[in-house]
């Protein structure tokens, strides 16, 4: 019970913080989304020990564990664009599949190469 209260409290804290960040970028007309600014601010606050990890760790863990749930309403939004998908679906799937394979090959091979070279150097 205490754990649930603690986790919930931390989630509320993160929500409030996220609202503040949104307001902040809105008022200052910054081009970056409030959530990205939020990641940076929380990260800096943790690094500089202004906030302690225990204050948000549990809430953050819960939010990240259920991340998929928060995407579902946007995915259901597909219902509004049925005609677009019926007309272009095959081509869209083709673009997504091929582009994803290209990105994977590029990042994977590059990271593998650099990591191998690093290992050779250190041995």
């Amino acid at each position, binding site marked *: 019970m205490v754990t649930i209260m603690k986790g919930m409290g931390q*989630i509320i804290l*993160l*929500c409030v913080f*996220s609202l503040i960040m*949104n307001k902040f970028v809105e008022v200052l007309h910054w081009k970056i*989304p409030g*959530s*990205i600014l*939020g*990641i*940076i601010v*929380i*990260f800096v606050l*943790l*690094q500089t020990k202004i906030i302690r990890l225990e204050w*948000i760790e549990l809430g*953050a*863990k819960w*939010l*990240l564990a259920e991340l*998929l*749930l*928060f*995407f*579902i*309403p*946007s*995915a*259901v*939004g*597909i*219902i*509004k*664009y049925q005609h677009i*998908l019926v007309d*272009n679906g095959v*081509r*869209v*799937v*083709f*673009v*997504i*599949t091929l*582009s*994803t*394979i*290209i*990105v*994977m*090959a*590029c*990042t*994977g*091979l*590059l*990271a*593998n190469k*650099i*990591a191998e070279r*690093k290992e050779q150097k250190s041995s």
Partner: protein
Amino acid sequence: MILALFSLILTIGLYWGAKWCYKTKPKVYLSPLLTTPLLIVAFLLWTHISYESYNTGAQWLSNMLQPATIAFAVPLYKYFNILKKHATEILVSVLSGSVVAIVSSLFLARGLHLNTQIVDSLIPRSVTTPIAMGVSETIGGVPAITAVFVIMTGLMGAVIGPIVIRLLRIENEIARGVLLGTSAHGAGTSKAFEFSSIAGTISSLSMILAALITLCVTPWLMALML
């Protein structure tokens, strides 16, 4: 009001059910991100409830994306030393991967003569939804369509990722994480955790980096390629 509450409960309920299904039978086509929206779409079509009325309740879940994105600061902080240790391979590969994602989506989509609105909505498809939707809006796409493309990318990435890893013989855990996180955001990251916790951690870092990079370079790349 009652309908709003109902759609909220329906979404969470179906999601829990789908999650349980996936746990007992972890097949890609049973991924909660695929089954839950499909069931809800079928339900809305059957009952003639409009998306707008469904979303009055369900948007509370979408609103949680913001704090959930901020929550990524926690793993970023916890594993910062791993990031520092492998900074070169992560930064170089994520940067090139993100640029390749934008450029290849743009050229493939244009090559297939998709209309501009769809092309622009496709461009940020490889990064996490909140950022992708933001980028989409900036460059003239439709955020809601982008959200659908992002999810399609995630599903596709989770299916193709392990195959690509096997075919290209990517045995380094760091490289596996970078590959999955850069190409398929959160869905790729949950797949990466199935490989190892290092791959998963690197994948979540790559996903955050890819989002930041895409956010910064997309408008600039678009201006370059017009």
